[in-house]
């Protein structure tokens, strides 16, 4: 029993320390954003990496997520002659949950890992020390641009995911399951509200910040050469993915 309590206490303390570290990174990153110099070039470069270069993978994931949702729900609704609502169900699922969550998980895997690996490598090869020695604030140079880029790009990618998801569901629902096209769209107009989109975008923005902060923090805390970089990269993906899912629950409870 004593061992269990000690184990539990250790884990709770560790988790709280980790959370405190993420919050500190976020606060320092935001503070750096409002101090000179403003690093617009770096922000655009990160936007290209996180946003533009992720577009294809988000499009493919979006199409097939929408398609599989339409296939499953369309067949189920057909059992009680309600297949007309397939489009609305898929659209609501995408806008409220799957769009922001799936997009963020994909970006966490693709970009969160890369952020941790890049900063981690810089840490173990003394490039971050070199920045500091040259009187350049590493938070301003490495963290702040990534927070802004991720905050801006994940919601945009989420919109693309939603659009392509609805297109995928249309292809499966209307063309494959032969749901009436007018009913398909009519139900979407009837049930989907603009706040579904806006709330989903707010979620995506929060998840974007989580991806950047976790990736940067894990990179900064890297120790121990190549093995340490590998560990930081894995942890960045695992921690940001789990945090996104936990945050999703609380945001959903607050919004809907």
């Amino acid at each position, binding site marked *: 029993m004593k061992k269990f309590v000690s184990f539990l206490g250790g884990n709770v303390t560790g988790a709280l320390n980790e959370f405190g570290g993420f919050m500190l990174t976020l606060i320092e990153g935001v503070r750096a954003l409002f101090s000179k*110099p403003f690093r617009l070039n770096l922000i655009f470069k990160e936007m290209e990496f996180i946003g533009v270069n992720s577009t294809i993978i988000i499009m493919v994931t979006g199409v097939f997520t929408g398609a599989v949702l339409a296939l499953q729900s369309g067949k189920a609704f057909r059992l009680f002659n309600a297949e007309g609502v397939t489009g609305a169900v898929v659209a609501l699922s995408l806008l409220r949950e799957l769009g922001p969550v799936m997009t963020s998980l994909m970006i966490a895997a693709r970009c969160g890992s890369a952020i941790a690996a890049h900063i981690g490598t*810089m840490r173990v*090869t*003394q*490039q971050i*020390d070199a920045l500091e*020695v*040259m*009187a350049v*604030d590493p938070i301003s140079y490495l963290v702040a641009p990534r927070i802004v880029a991720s905050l801006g790009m994940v919601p945009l990618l989420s919109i693309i995911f939603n659009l392509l998801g609805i297109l995928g569901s249309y292809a499966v629902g209307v063309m494959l399951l032969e749901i009436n096209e007018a009913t398909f769209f009519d139900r979407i107009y009837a049930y989907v509200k603009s706040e579904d989109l806006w709330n989903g975008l707010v979620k995506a923005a929060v998840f974007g910040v989580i991806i950047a902060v976790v990736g940067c923090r894990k990179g900064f805390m890297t120790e121990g050469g190549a093995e340490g970089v590998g560990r930081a990269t894995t942890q960045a993906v695992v921690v940001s993915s789990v945090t996104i899912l936990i945050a999703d629950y609380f945001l959903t409870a607050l919004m809907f």
Partner: protein
Amino acid sequence: MIEIQDLKKSFGSQMVLKGVNLVIPDGQITVIIGASGSGKSVLLKHLIGLSQPDSGKILVSGTDIAHLDSYHIKNVRMRFGMLFQDGALFDSMNVYENIAFPLREHRRMNEEEIRLLVAEKLKQVNLPGTEKKMPNELSGGMRKRVGLARAIVLNPEIILYDEPTTGLDPVSSQSIDDLIVSTQKHLNGTTVVISHDIRATLRIANKVAMLHDGKIVAEGTPDDFLTNPNPIVRSFLDPAILHAKLPSRKS
């Protein structure tokens, strides 16, 4: 002048610096030698504010930099240049971008002025025409030279070298030694070298200090050092004297 007063630093229960006292004179090359694990690199990190001591002072021209806030330490760092052990070049940038980096951060210069200055610094470190190479295309010695060009591009008053000849062949080591001496003459600044290379130390140093078990156990000119009877110094010097003829000093 840099004055280190009773500097102490521990990591957990391990005390690495146990009260370091050392004066680093202006306009000279001071080499701090010591075996691996003696605390040399930790001491160097304190000199530039990358580590905070538990107690003690580091006076740079009379200002204690050991406990400065991030804003003031930045201003102090503008007076320093540092060559890291492996160069610490930004691997996402080519040689030109690496050397231009401090200029872009701290000077208002147009691209042509930057280009000229980068070319001049590359010539100074005997690497002209390598602007477009990426760090992974450079040998260890070349990376250190590019690192040195980046460290001196703002003409710092104080240059720190962290094990500049570690991992290099004897020819490259000697060329780095020559560069340290020529850079010192060119900038007329203060140079601090951390090393365990006794041959290079005796060749380039104006002052030698030996760090052992977290304390300075001997200091003086290279000639004083060669005749120092301290057993710790002897155990460091004698194998080098026995196994090789010590090199003549650079004039």
